[in-house]
């Protein structure tokens, strides 16, 4: 009985610590952002107030924030899932783009299907395209040992150019720099149709899908043998190999699943938000933001949901800051600083150093060490 309580206590304590370190990093980054704003003669309070109300000021703003959050949860899960297998999926961006294009194709070419079936097929097409795109990277890593970071960076650019080529040729809306629109049956249901509060937001059922996918990711990772194997490979590939786990198969599988999530994010972007795909001049950034989301969420599905909300709010609050005369890029700067702090474990290392110093001082005071 006592053991059980102690176990619970220590696990609670650990969870608190896991949350506390990213939280400290977030707070420090916001302070850094405030200093920057102040340095250019503007009020940080005005800036953050605008940021807050821009993101969460009313139901429509909350709706719009959740639209971005949906995408970020999925790309975040994508990066986090690969991370758990020891893989760095910097290619979420490319998988997102491919997912968007595949969903566009399915949403148009398969029109005539019944509504619910059509939208499901559209989203699955997106997920599948992302899965294949990432699977190529995983396959190359497993078969010829070429590094997933290099290949997925290259695949990002190939995806962008392939998508642009398709958008400007076969899928082109004549004389426009975007594709034609998907069929109405392929569109995700929007909350605005039934809830007047969300009338001016594009909030759609994708948010529910994203939350379910997070739970599925959690289940796969923590409750299945396959998930155990994936985590084992991430923890120590050599030991896993020795323990009879097929490392190569798990690398490919983890990449494919990771790609499914990003591809789904792209599919949802097409079926729920834009209904078209634009000719891109640069990356959308959703895939790269997924890296931030995964990192701050500690690569845990529940953490990813929370940090997805945070980054969604940051991005949607930015334009309101712009109206107050403060460049919305402050948000990107804060985001960059957060990643730097979390990635370097800055707070944790500093706390450890402080504790060590205190111990040494205590020992000196006691006369144990001179």
């Amino acid at each position, binding site marked *: 009985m006592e053991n059980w309580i102690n176990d619970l206590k220590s696990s609670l304590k650990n969870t608190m610590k896991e949350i506390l370190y990213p939280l400290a990093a977030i707070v420090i980054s916001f302070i850094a952002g405030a200093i920057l704003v102040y340095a250019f003669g503007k009020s940080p309070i005005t800036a953050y107030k605008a940021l807050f109300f821009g993101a969460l000021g009313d139901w429509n703003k909350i709706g719009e924030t959740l639209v971005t959050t949906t995408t970020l949860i999925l790309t975040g899960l994508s990066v986090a899932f690969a991370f758990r297998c020891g893989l760095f999926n910097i290619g979420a961006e490319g998988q997102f783009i491919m997912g968007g294009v595949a969903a566009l194709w399915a949403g148009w070419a398969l029109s005539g299907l019944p509504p619910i079936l059509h939208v499901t097929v559209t989203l699955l097409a997106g997920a599948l395209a992302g899965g294949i795109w990432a699977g190529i990277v995983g396959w190359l890593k497993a078969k010829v040992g070429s590094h997933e970071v290099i290949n997925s960076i290259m695949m990002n650019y190939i995806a962008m150019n392939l998508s642009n080529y398709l958008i400007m040729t076969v899928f082109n809306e004549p004389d426009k720099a975007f594709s034609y629109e998907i069929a109405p049956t392929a569109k995700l249901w929007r909350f605005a149709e039934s809830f007047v509060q969300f009338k001016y937001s594009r909030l759609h059922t994708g948010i529910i899908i994203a939350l379910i996918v997070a739970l599925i990711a959690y289940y796969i990772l923590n409750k299945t043998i396959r998930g155990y194997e994936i985590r084992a490979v991430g923890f120590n590939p050599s030991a896993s190999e020795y323990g009879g786990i097929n490392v190569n198969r798990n690398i490919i599988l983890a990449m494919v699943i990771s790609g499914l999530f990003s591809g789904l994010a792209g599919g949802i972007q097409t079926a729920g938000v834009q209904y078209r795909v634009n000719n891109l001049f640069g990356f959308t950034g959703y895939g790269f933001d997924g890296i931030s989301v995964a990192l701050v969420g500690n690569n845990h599905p529940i953490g990813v949901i929370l940090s997805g909300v945070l980054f969604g709010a940051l991005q949607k609050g930015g334009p309101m800051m712009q109206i107050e005369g403060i460049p919305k890029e402050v948000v990107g*700067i804060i985001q960059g600083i957060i990643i730097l702090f979390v*990635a*370097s474990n800055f707070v944790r290392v500093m706390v450890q150093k402080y504790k060590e110093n205190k111990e040494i001082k205590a020992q000196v005071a006691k006369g144990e060490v001179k």
Partner: protein
Amino acid sequence: MLSIISILVASTIRSATPLIFPALGGTFSEKSGVVNIGLDGMMAVGAFSAVLVSYKTGSPLLGLFGAMVIGGLFGWLLAFLSIHFKANQVVVGTAINILAGSLTTFLLVEIWGKPGQTDNVNYFTPWGPFNMFTYLALILVLVSYYVLYKTPFGLRIRAVGEHPRAADTLGVNVYMMRYICVILSGILAGIGGASLSIGSISLFKEGMVAGKGFIALAAMIFGKWHPIGAALACLFFGLADAIQTISMSYGLNVPKEFLFALPYMLTMLAVSGLVGKATAPAADGIPYEKGEK
């Protein structure tokens, strides 16, 4: 025909010039064992600082110097976090890219009071068919080759990237070597950025770097982590760019997206061993810990 060829050659060299500096920077950094995904961001801050300093002082030469200092500073940041805090180098590089994009746009708006682009500043006018930067790139390629392969210092760099433990045992300061190389890569990326802004046009535009740091990274890999190989790869990628520009003005129908994607496809083939095997330094990307077995 001859005129097309000479236009093509000149255009190739002009496209390759800004790529060569970060590609050399990446070579130094990765030869010493630190992956530098942040080249793109370092180019962006370099391009911006060059314009800012030239704007404030009126001297493009000081602008170039400013680009080197700020590029080097971001290189130091990568070195500091990945060497001392053993942070994931790819993550830090990504953060630098995000930070650089936002920071340059933020400062652009705050200093010039408008988004999009800066005012015109003094810049390096071309010497003959090319800019000063092209000649500088050629010299730096040869110097880099000489330093990396013909000097004890270069041997140490390569040793630290291949087998840091052995190098450490022989008295080479692994951390110091990595610091020097990563800061150098930032300085070189900064020069590359400056060659885009005060080297070809007289201003900084939002998104003007637009992934050139990543093409340079690809060129470094395609060039097999070798200064001359990387420079040749830059020329080859520059050729793809030149063909795209020229085919458009001559009305040839080559899909531009295919030419844009070509460098990346070739690089993937190269790392997969289909177009000559490209192998990274053995300790590339792995933080070094003293006393670790």
